[in-house]
């Protein structure tokens, strides 16, 4: 399971990194969002994987590490705030500049 988990996280990260390297704001924002999913999984897994051990006292004998869960929760919320901001910033950029390309048009790379 550990192998599967880490491979999944890796693949997810790689895909989001690829998106982040695109030249338009929307895919980049989606990439960032997906990266935050991947990162949340990663952060979550630093407490190691446990099945059927929700850290609720009295329900189990073995508990999963609750601390990473709390951290991930915070990270999710912050990630949400950031996603929201960047999405709307992308819209604003589109509204103001008329294109959603992240770079100026005459600057080499994106327009090639």
């Amino acid at each position: 399971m550990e192998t599967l988990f880490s491979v999944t996280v890796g693949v997810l990260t790689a895909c989001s990194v690829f998106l982040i390297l695109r030249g338009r704001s929307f895919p980049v924002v989606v990439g960032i969002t997906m990266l935050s999913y991947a990162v949340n999984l990663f952060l979550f897994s630093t407490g190691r994987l446990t099945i059927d051990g929700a850290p609720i006292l009295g329900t189990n004998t073995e508990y999963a590490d609750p601390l990473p869960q709390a951290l991930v929760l915070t990270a999710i919320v912050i990630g949400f705030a950031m996603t929201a901001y960047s999405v709307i910033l992308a819209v604003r950029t589109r509204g103001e500049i008329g294109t959603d390309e992240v770079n100026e048009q005459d600057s080499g790379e994106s327009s090639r």
Partner: protein
Amino acid sequence: MWQQHLAILPILIPLFTALLQLLPWGDRPQPKRRALGLASSILTLVCAALLLVHVNQNGMLVYALGDWSAPFGIVLVLDKLSTLMILLTAVLALPVLIYGCYTEDNLGSHFHALFQFQVMGIIGAFATGDLFNLFVFFEVLLISSYGLMMHGGGKFRVRSTLHYVLLNLLGSALFLISVGTLYATTGTLNMADMAVKVAQLSGDEAALARAGGFMLLAVFGIKAAILPLHFWLPQAYSTTTGVVAALFAIMTKVGVYSIIRVYTLIFGPEANELVWLAADWLWILGILTLIFGIIGMLGTRDFRLLVAYLVIVSVGTLLATYSFSSAAGISTALFYLIHSTVITGALFLLADVMAFERGKTASRIVTGKRMANHNTYAVMFLIAAIAIIGLPPLSGFAGKLMILQAAPVSTSGFWLWGTMLLATLVMLIMMSRTGSKMIWHTLQGKPNEQSAPIGKRVAIGMLLSLSLILTIFANPIRDYTDSVADELLDTQSYPTTVIAPSSGEENQYE
């Protein structure tokens, strides 16, 4: 006990102010908001100063939030370094806010709230002793900086904000990965505890922790604008409004602070297999950053951009100096940090107000009309230039001398000498060029009629006079930074102070 609570006041005051600023304040809210903001900034400043005095007298202050002592709860650890940085923030924030209160805050909504949030985030980042909490405060200060960067709107601003935001979002993701890795290897989040645990690591676990530590370096590198990660800075700082850029003068320093904190405490002298993890890299990158800043200064044709590169130069200087890992290096780096923060802040404001009074030519380094308050700006420019270049008699030269003396007489020391002196020369040439073009070489005819409110000039004057204070009291300040460095390098007693339950007893309400 109330003195104990002093530890958190510099965070809470801006927080509550910001929250109050979010409420509607009737039909003409602006005067009330300004009064509120200024009052709060002054209060923060007072608290920060009291805190510094307190810590200096009674030693490190450990404030266990929620009464959960380290390493289990989050603690604020106010050692000399933290209090120094907090005071610096407060000191910078007040004049910047005064400047902002003169019409700057009308350019868009929520200026005052975001400003206070920003201050809160910065101070929080300086105060916290917990790695994840540091992340949270990084996010607080980042998101408010995103908001502030958009202040005033405009095409260029939008694009550079977009770059800034996206790049920092990537940085935040990397931050989480590294925090995760470090937690997974050490099982703790408290930095002091982590320092203890890191020292016990060996073999493959140590390698994992190293990987995490290095990733963290990249994260802080983005904030501090180290060489390959700095590209956001010139764009961002030069397009945003002056007041925001001036406040941002401390933002790169948050990155620098984090580097100093983490790579001295956690991966510092006691870290066994991870000893001085980042020093070599910081050395090379610091020098490269410095060189890059030099080239950047040479290549720029805009005053603001020039100042932005000055920030980069100062970051390079700081990190290269820090990387000597000696008490003298750290101490001088801190002195220089104080100086460069204040002066770049003043320069950003100056560039802004000059751009305003110059009208069409704005901050481009070209011949333009005379400004309405030409002579005042000329004097201010001269003072700021002398200070930032590091010419006597203002604070810059003291800082520079200190750094040069602290550099070891060795190959690396000579590299630093060479690049720093070269940087000084380039600054000299570029600042004289800028001043000559913008202030001396004016068009004939009537000066521009737009005149900035006097408050703005007062604010800049306040910051510049700080440079004078820094010069006059250079020695006591240096003494203080020396003690900061000593405390910082004493990485053995730091954890014992932090982790030992400060309040003694357990939570006892039942």
